[in-house]
């Protein structure tokens, strides 16, 4: 039995009300979207906020719609609703597929897109009870000064474990953040930073309100593959998200490929521009797999063999492209 620490609960009815509460309580408050990450983490005493601000009743955050040439998805849309949305399934199949693979069915009914993007990073030495962490002498990310993954390490390497982040990065999405100080829209690749302690630039008084993905003008193909020990419930041990715009002749105008669940920040594979303007054939896919393999170095931050996770990178890159290029609906 795991009890929660005491806190006061607030249920604002609008973004404006939520921002007022954030202004009053700021760093002493935590936002509660679906609670699937926050509540277990609070039970483990990873967070002990004095105020919890529940966003369930903020109706304006629950919408999905097309606006200004983009699909705008409210941050409180549940992962189950995102996976079921016909428009998302037709236009961005990799996003639908990623949402459908987060955790298990009940968690997807609760968890939200905003919550998944703001998911705390995970590590085998961090996501444990207070008793367990105390017995080990704590760690760099919480209450301690040493890293148990990298001996002598001064930088936390807990893993970004969200499924929707690599996909939305591969789709070039932006996020809208609101705080009592104003509002800003950031490309998602500026939202994440390579620090396992806190891997986003989200301020304590800031709220993700909306995710925007530009509607494709040409032929967009997408794929998403996830490695985990069980095909449900488990967090990923490796994720691969791919996207490309294809010309009529089958050559790729541009290619994006994001590898995640390894380190603190999802990794956009670099130095693949020489493949733009060429056909996405087996040789090109092989080269993309090798590029990803060379750039990614999994650690023992989760309970899955890092050597195996690395060897699976080219395999999952190939599967993701096969899925993207398969004829017909995915």
């Amino acid at each position, binding site marked *: 039995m795991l009890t929660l620490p005491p806190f006061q609960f607030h249920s604002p009815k609008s973004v404006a009300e939520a921002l007022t509460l954030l202004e009053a309580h700021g760093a002493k408050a935590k936002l509660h979207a679906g*609670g699937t990450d926050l509540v277990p983490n609070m039970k483990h005493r990873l967070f002990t906020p004095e105020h919890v601000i529940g966003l*369930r009743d903020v109706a304006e955050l629950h919408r999905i719609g097309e606006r200004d040439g983009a699909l705008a998805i409210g941050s409180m849309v549940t992962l189950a609703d995102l996976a079921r949305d016909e428009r998302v399934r037709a236009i961005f199949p990799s996003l639908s597929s990623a949402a459908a693979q987060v955790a298990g*069915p009940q968690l997807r009914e609760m968890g939200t897109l905003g919550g998944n993007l703001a998911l705390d990073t995970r590590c085998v030495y961090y996501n444990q009870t207070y008793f367990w962490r105390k017995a080990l002498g704590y760690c760099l990310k919480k209450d301690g000064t040493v890293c148990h993954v990298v001996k002598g390490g001064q930088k936390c390497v807990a893993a970004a474990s969200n499924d929707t982040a690599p996909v939305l990065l591969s789709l070039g999405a932006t996020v809208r953040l609101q705080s009592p100080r104003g509002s800003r829209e950031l490309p998602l690749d500026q939202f994440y930073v390579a620090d396992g302690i806190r891997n986003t630039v989200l301020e304590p008084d800031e709220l993700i309100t909306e995710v925007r993905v530009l509607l494709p003008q040409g032929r967009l193909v997408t794929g998403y593959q996830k490695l985990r020990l069980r095909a449900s419930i488990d967090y990923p041990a490796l994720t691969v998200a791919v996207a490309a715009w294809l010309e009529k002749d089958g050559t790729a105008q541009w290619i994006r490929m994001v590898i995640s669940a390894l380190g603190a920040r999802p990794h956009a594979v670099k130095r693949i521009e020489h493949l733009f303007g060429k056909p996405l054939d087996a040789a090109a896919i092989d080269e993309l797999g090798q590029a990803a393999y060379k750039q990614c170095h999994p650690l023992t931050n989760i309970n899955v063999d890092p050597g195996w996770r690395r060897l699976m990178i080219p395999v999952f890159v190939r599967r993701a492209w096969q899925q993207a290029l398969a004829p017909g609906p995915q």
Partner: protein
Amino acid sequence: MARPARELIRFEVNGDWHELAVEPRTTLLEALRYVLKLTGSKQGCDKGDCGACTVLIDGRPQLSCISLAMTAVGRKITTIEGLAEGNRAHPVQDAFDLCGALQCGFCQSGMMLSAAALLADNPRPNRDEIKQALSGNLCRCTGYTQIVDAVEVASGQRDVPERDERPTTRRK
């Protein structure tokens, strides 16, 4: 911090409205089990992994152990105690009984609520869809085969096992 005062909340459980005073940190599972004494929802891992605490909130299967009671305000909750209609067992309950789809029974209430939610959405699911819908409920005893069989029986896609293949508890 000092413990915040209890708050009065209202929600509907199995067709009846309840008003209860809870600390804000009370989970929905704690409110159901320890305030309303509905102990059919099980406290397994208590951190959102195992599915033993599954209840239906507005018809959707969710985990009560990581839901705050405060977020259930105004909602319609169905626990295993409310799955049957009066004296009439839900088809899923009947099928679990006829198929012997349990051993220790700890996962069973969550399993049956996930199955009932599936059949409400999709009255004739195939085997893969059943496995997918039940993939958030762990069972350490059965190996799942008879559980999946039971959902097929409940959806009218499989015959009830022969009498002599039924578990002994069912024999007269």
